[in-house]
């Protein structure tokens, strides 16, 4: 955690992920400071890969982890809003595509909030400091005489205030503040983190426009269904695909081998037979039409009733 204080700002993002307990991989792609703060062509300012404050005041969080239904898109947005002193209505979340620039996007083990909360808070705090720096310069006062609240920077001497969006372009030209100068809020002062917030996805949820995994559509996409062994860790012995091939819409049938990686059987690929079709229904019908003989393996004689006795 403390190593972050020793780095220069060029490496800020790169080590930010490391120091946070997050993963360094993705951030190294963006470690180039030119990517980090685009200057000439900037339409807003990009303190890092994950948030984007625009001139109209909108703050877009790029969620690099998957949403599994617990609401991490809202949780992570709350961390940004908290430290930035944002107005919740300007916050939106865009789901990142799968890309190495986002680093490890594996979503499991309750790690999204555990590993991203502090980096997100620091990002919010960093952005706030940059906005305050710009405003202080405009008013020709010390940054300590400014505070941020509800999407505005406030001059505490005169009570003048400037909208975040109006400071974004100038803030984009500033260097990233040193991490030791970043101050995070006290837990007792939290307004968003840990509070009941409206889901950032409410409008999509109520209009059928939220994109779940099953809703993703890409050009020339096919639909697949996989027939799995009735016994855990079983594999395909043989199968007949004649009837499945006859199902209208079925385009290909593949055997999927059972693969066991060096890390052990639990993260391997389960065996099965995959049906590729031009729609989900055809894939399902094709799967039903398969005749598969399974190698049931070591679990073949597992007896649930017997197990319950222990």
């Amino acid at each position, binding site marked *: 955690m403390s190593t972050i204080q020793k780095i220069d700002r060029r490496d800020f993002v790169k080590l930010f992920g490391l120091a946070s307990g997050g993963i360094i991989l993705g951030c190294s792609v963006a470690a180039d400071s030119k990517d980090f703060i685009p200057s000439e062509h900037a339409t807003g300012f990009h303190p890092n890969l994950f948030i984007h404050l625009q001139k109209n005041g909108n703050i877009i969080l790029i969620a690099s982890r998957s949403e599994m239904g617990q609401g991490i898109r809202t949780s992570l947005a709350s961390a940004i809003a908290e430290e930035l002193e944002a107005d919740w209505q300007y916050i939106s979340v865009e789901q990142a595509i799968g890309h190495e620039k986002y680093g490890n996007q594996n979503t499991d083990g309750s790690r999204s909030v555990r590993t991203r909360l502090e980096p997100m808070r620091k990002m919010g705090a960093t952005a706030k400091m940059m906005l305050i720096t710009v405003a202080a310069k405009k008013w020709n006062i010390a940054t300590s005489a400014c505070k941020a609240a509800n999407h505005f920077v406030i001059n505490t001497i005169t009570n003048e205030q400037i909208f975040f969006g109006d400071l974004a372009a100038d803030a984009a030209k500033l260097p990233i503040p040193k991490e030791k100068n970043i101050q995070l809020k006290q837990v007792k002062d939290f307004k968003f983190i840990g509070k009941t917030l409206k*889901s950032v996805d*409410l409008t999509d*949820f109520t209009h*059928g*426009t939220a994109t*779940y995994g*099953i809703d993703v559509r890409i050009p020339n996409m096919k639909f697949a269904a996989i027939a799995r062994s009735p016994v855990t860790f079983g594999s395909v012995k043989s199968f007949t695909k004649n009837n499945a091939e006859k199902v*209208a819409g079925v385009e290909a049938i593949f055997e999927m081998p059972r693969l066991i990686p060096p890390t052990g059987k639990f993260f391997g690929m389960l065996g099965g037979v995959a049906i590729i079709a031009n729609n989900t229904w055809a894939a399902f019908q094709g799967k039903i039409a398969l005749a598969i003989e399974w190698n049931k393996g070591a679990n073949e004689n597992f007896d649930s009733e017997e197990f319950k006795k222990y």
Partner: protein
Amino acid sequence: MDINLSINGKLHAVQVQEDMPLLWVIRDIVGLTGTKFGCGVSQCGACSVLIDGKLTKSCVTSVSDAIEKDIFTIEGNSKNLEFLRQAWTDGNVPQCGYCQSGQLIAATSLLDLIEKPTDEDIDEAMSANICRCGTYARIKKGIHTAVKLKNETK
């Protein structure tokens, strides 16, 4: 076969087998993905749509049964659905949201039939829509709120 479907007031000409469930025609052929696949056997309600106003599980309804009828999905607009959407938003009803298309369609059907449903009416009308996040209490409150919003605008 060639089939003409009317979905949310818009005509769609599709070429599908007549026994393909309406759900997959709506999702994979027409491309409206708001209607969800849950169980595929009419047990969860995620795939709920209205056909000529009648609440229907599209996963077990052949597309041929919807020919020349009005199909209404979560992407559609109706007065009752609008009040429900507002109530769902006010009450932060969804958690993961996956079942909520079906919940909202079932609730729309309920409000289309009963102007001011009681708790018992709601329990009965919504009993075929499962929510794994367990948002039932918020859903019930949301329906009452929608009725209130509707009466306020009268």
